């Protein structure tokens, strides 16, 4: 019923229309002809700068309007300073300084105290600087300022709070492929700075696992010094008294003669590349393209800022006007030529667009960057950008925090204290010619790196239309599991046991003679809503061809792997490439299938070691550690009496990260002279997983000639 209510609406509208037309509509002033009074004076307090004996730099502004005192701190430390094998250390240190409390007060006690007073103390360490914040009612400053001092100077770093941050960090890793825009920008930074660069690298399970309490203590000891610290304080206090209070509580913090090291350079070569992250559960692509950006101390910075505004500024920049308002290709379209204070920023243009308009949007974004360097920039556009900057200049002074943070920022990065005024003067002088010149000099529309996160099956054109496509595998890496040092005896014993097991299953020769097999099985899949039974048929042609047909209520789903290539065919007959992660997991799984393992005992790089006698569900077993070439190790357990493999366990990759998997094998029956387990049950992270009951196995049967062919 589309318009029941709208019919009444139309009636109402007619009535309203009558009223409306009866009203005299006064002649209206043209909004373009309005004259405005001069702006009231901007009263800008100048912060007082004081350096304490131990080197702490203070900026203070008295502000008696509210009985509150606020402090914002900056420390010369960042994630750029953490070791490459412990990425995450800086962030965890920054968080646990506060959550873990100090040697005199636990983090939980601090929480209780602060929340009872409506006060806040927070600490953190970001990419290139660390920070702290305190906000407190004036009357409580003598309770809260010592807490801040204590957590900065004497953090306790208790194990349980470190573990809490590590749990959070691991969870963040496991969630990092959930949001396509996050994925796109994370990978884009790596494309621009390099995956190993301190400006782009990110945490992995292994780097989080490697972090210990000793690391936090050392990181704090090495970087947190009074002569690497600045405080900005504003609020209801007398400046001299506040300086004294701060000197008192931080007086015991000893100067270290600290010199902040320079940041590493960025080595960038302009070129173009086309990169794709496949994500098949979304209907919208995130498109980002661009190249390296600049540094703010460049004399061209002012002209670049105006250029940036013309291309990507808010609702009136070209990107918004054209890609969104004119072409309707995106809701979110944005870009920036970013200039950092002390290392090169990045330049990009980006949007989110439907899968079916992805190529069109790429062309449109690229066209707009190109047009900046070839077409006219109009006086109109220049004036709009300049007026917008100059008229909104007053907003730089409407909060004390902003004023004081800016002064600290300039000093921290070694910029003149009047850099904002210099920027204003600089922008006033920018001409159309300047903008054209910097656009031509700094934008390279033909040498941009492109990344798309999306469902490329539905794109309007194949990505290859833009160049050779590099598919980025975003599978979350498992922490590498190190196999224990193997003695010669362990290795010999391991080999011997495997050969004995192979004999028990029918003999090495019989196993080597297996070329194909076909299996039909009932799989019970455990789902949150209950269990579900699926029939699967698997066809295998050794060494590297494999196909499974899942018979689901919706129809058949085929998984095919042929050498390096793989496909999924859904019940509708649509074909998709097999995701890399899924292919790797099949390859890993094959190495864990005893029949296939025993065929490959001579494979180069395979390490087998005996690790002892254990029990599996009451049965004595021989435990082996198997490390297939290039893969993580797993444990294989052989029944000590029958030598049948009864279980394997080890980490495996899932779409969302590593899981600890186990598989039990039982109900061995003979098929063509070989013993085959007819029952397999699996668990993941200790939770019940699939149960597979074999219905029928045939060995060395003829398989259909096209079984492993690329689907139509």
């Amino acid at each position, binding site marked *: 019923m589309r318009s029941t209510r709208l019919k009444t609406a139309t009636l109402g509208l007619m009535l309203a229309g009558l009223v409306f037309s009866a009203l005299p509509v006064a002649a209206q002033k043209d909004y373009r002809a309005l004259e405005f009074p001069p702006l009231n004076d901007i009263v800008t307090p100048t912060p007082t700068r004081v350096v304490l004996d131990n080197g702490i730099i203070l900026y203070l502004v008295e502000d008696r309007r509210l009985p509150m005192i606020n402090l914002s701190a900056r420390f010369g430390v960042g994630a750029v300073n953490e070791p490459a094998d412990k990425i995450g250390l800086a962030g965890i240190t920054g968080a646990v300084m506060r959550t873990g409390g100090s040697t005199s007060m636990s983090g939980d006690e601090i929480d209780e105290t602060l929340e009872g007073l409506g006060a806040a103390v927070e600490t953190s360490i970001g990419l290139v600087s660390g920070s702290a914040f305190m906000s407190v009612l004036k009357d409580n400053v003598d309770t809260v300022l010592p807490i801040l001092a204590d957590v900065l100077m004497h953090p306790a770093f208790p194990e349980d709070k470190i573990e809490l941050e590590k749990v959070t960090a691991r969870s963040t890793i496991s969630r990092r492929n959930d949001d396509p825009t996050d994925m796109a920008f994370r990978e884009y930074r790596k494309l621009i700075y390099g995956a190993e660069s301190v400006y782009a690298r990110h945490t992995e399970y292994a780097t989080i696992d490697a972090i210990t309490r000793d690391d936090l203590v050392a990181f704090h000891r090495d970087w947190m010094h009074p002569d690497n610290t600045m405080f900005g304080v504003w609020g209801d206090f007398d400046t001299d008294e506040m300086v004294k209070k701060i000197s008192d509580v931080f007086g015991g913090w000893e100067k270290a003669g600290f010199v902040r090291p320079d940041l590493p350079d960025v080595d960038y070569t302009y070129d173009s590349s086309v990169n794709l992250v496949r994500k098949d559960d979304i209907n*919208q692509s995130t498109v980002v393209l661009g190249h390296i950006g600049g540094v703010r101390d460049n004399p061209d910075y002012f002209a670049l800022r105006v250029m940036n505004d013309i291309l990507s500024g808010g609702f009136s920049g070209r990107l918004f006007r054209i890609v969104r308002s004119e072409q309707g290709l995106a809701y979110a379209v944005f870009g920036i030529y970013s200039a950092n204070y002390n290392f090169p920023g990045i330049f990009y243009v980006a949007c989110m667009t439907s899968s079916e308009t992805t190529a069109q949007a790429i062309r449109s974004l690229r066209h707009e960057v190109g047009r900046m360097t070839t077409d006219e920039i109009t006086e109109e556009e220049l004036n709009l950008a300049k007026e917008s900057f100059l008229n909104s200049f007053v907003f730089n002074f409407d909060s004390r925090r902003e004023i004081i943070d800016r002064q600290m920022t300039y000093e921290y990065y070694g910029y003149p204290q009047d850099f904002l005024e210099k920027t204003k003067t600089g922008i006033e002088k920018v001409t159309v010619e300047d903008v054209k010149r910097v656009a031509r000099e700094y934008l390279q529309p033909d040498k941009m790196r492109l990344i798309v996160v999306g469902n490329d099956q539905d794109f309007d054109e194949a990505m290859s239309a833009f160049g050779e496509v590099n598919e980025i595998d975003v599978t979350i890496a498992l922490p590498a599991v190190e196999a224990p040092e193997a003695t010669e005896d362990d290795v010999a014993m391991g080999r011997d046991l495997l050969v004995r097991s192979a004999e028990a299953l029918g003999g090495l020769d019989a196993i080597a003679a297996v070329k194909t097999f076909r299996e039909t099985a009932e799989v019970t899949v455990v789902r949150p*809503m209950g269990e579900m039974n699926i029939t699967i048929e698997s066809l295998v042609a050794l060494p590297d061809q494999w196909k499974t047909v899942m018979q689901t209520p919706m129809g058949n789903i085929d998984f095919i792997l042929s050498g390096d290539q793989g496909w999924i065919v859904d019940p509708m007959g649509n074909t998709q490439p097999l995701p890399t992660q899924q292919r790797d997991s099949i390859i890993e799984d094959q190495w864990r299938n005893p029949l296939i393992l025993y065929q490959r005992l001579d494979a180069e790089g395979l390490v087998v070691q005996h690790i002892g006698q254990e029990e599996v569900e009451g049965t004595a077993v021989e435990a082996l550690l198997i490390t297939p070439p290039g893969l993580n190790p797993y444990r294989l357990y052989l029944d000590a009496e029958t030598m049948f493999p009864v279980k394997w366990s080890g980490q495996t990759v899932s779409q969302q990260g590593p899981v600890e998997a186990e598989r039990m094998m039982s109900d061995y029956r003979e098929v063509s002279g070989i013993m085959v387990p007819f029952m397999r049950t699996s668990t993941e992270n200790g939770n019940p997983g699939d149960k597979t009951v074999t219905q029928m196995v045939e060995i060395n049967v003829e398989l259909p000639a096209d079984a492993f062919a690329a689907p139509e």
Partner: protein
Amino acid sequence: MKTRLTQLIPLAVMVLALSGPSGSAMSQDLAAFEQNVTEFTLDNGLTFIVVENHDAPVLSVLTYADVGSADEVKGITGIAHLFEHMAFKGTTTIGAMDLEAEYAAMEKVDEIFDDLRNERHKGHLADPERLASLEQAFDDAKTAARELGRSNAMDEAIDRAGGTGLNASTSRDATRYYYSLPSNKLELFFALESNRFLEPVLREFFIERDVVKEERRMSESSPVGRLVEEMLSAAYKAHPYGEPIVGHMSDIDSMTRAEAMDFFRRYYGAGNLTIIISGDADPAHVKELAHEYFDRLPAGPPVEPVETTEPPQIAERRVTMEDRSQPVILMGYHKVDINHEDDVVFNVLSDILGSGRTSRLYTKLVKDQKIAVNASSFTDFPGSKYPNMIVFFAFPSKDYTAADTEQAIEEEIERIRNEEVTEEELSRAKVRARVNLIRGLESNMGLATQLAYFHVLTGDWRNLFHSIDAINEVTAEDIKRVANEYLVSKNRTVASIVTMDDGGTE
């Protein structure tokens, strides 16, 4: 104009009250604050609230239209939000070049769209050639109409004047338009805003529809966005709070300019608008400008509230979304609207259970059991004008499931049903309510947003302060009673993401 000093007193008084013994000081604070507030209503019903703050020569403006997506009916979901987008496209004077020609061109676009829509309605029987030629004609007509007007003239005028933070938002209850300006440009706001709601021209309507479709896809691309939409549609079987604000794709796809204009005329009468100006403004000057520019707006037809009432829920509802993303759990319990006396009890209850590092959920799930990276709660979801929900949620830690965290949350809810909260918890919640109020008042835009919300939904902006008094009255017994009445399983909708791994075949 008031002197600087008088207007500085109230904030200070309010904060001082915080550090004193607990008790109601808000009425005094309000009396002081009121000196800086001027409220007046034009004959056409348009209300203005001016809050003076002369610290810096800047001000924030906010127009609150008392219409949201809850006012929509099936078939036109998303129209409130789409109109909000269209309200940026200019008017008969802003952005107009040759109005007569432009209107003719827009009507042609409308006509072709009607033909196209009729052809599409035939489904499989549609004539592909006719479809293709209509689509081509549609594109051409859109381009032709676009050339005849400037859809970004209003954005540009605000940008040029130094405006910042220009934006708008549509919720289920309301549509808000806002930005900040250097205070000497106040008249520009009056010129633009009065025109915007007098004679809007819905330029590039069909292109903007495509933009909105992308906005919808953006939320579809987010696992939590998908989950929330599913949760609401399960929680509300009658009331329009169950519909997505952005609308259903097919509704957006079939919407016409005439429908959007009908919606505008029905809901954007002056009597349905409230304007807040907060910052360096002189109320007498504002009043003059208000008469000069806004007297001409028609009052508009009377607007009726949504008559559909969500019936009491009699059975728990569950939404389990198997998704290739990490687990999330949302547990929503139906509760009362903003004007019910129990509403404020939910604010305190939610604060104790789910706000900050000392809250019960954070302490149990995050700090102690480490089964979640975040556990929290919020109220007034998905709106506050009509009966709504209190929601508890958690993001489970790696290797934990939604079910693990659900159980822990349920234990805490059971505890709050069975035992009274401690005095310490209660007083912490009250202190926080006051501090949050103060912090919200620090910025011009924060103030404008809060005052508009209370004024329109409760009938008086002063209720912003009275609500703190009401919070101070809440007792441990109230919390227990409310928990037992509302936080029961038959009254809830539990929505979760269960991580599905598609690599699970052997």
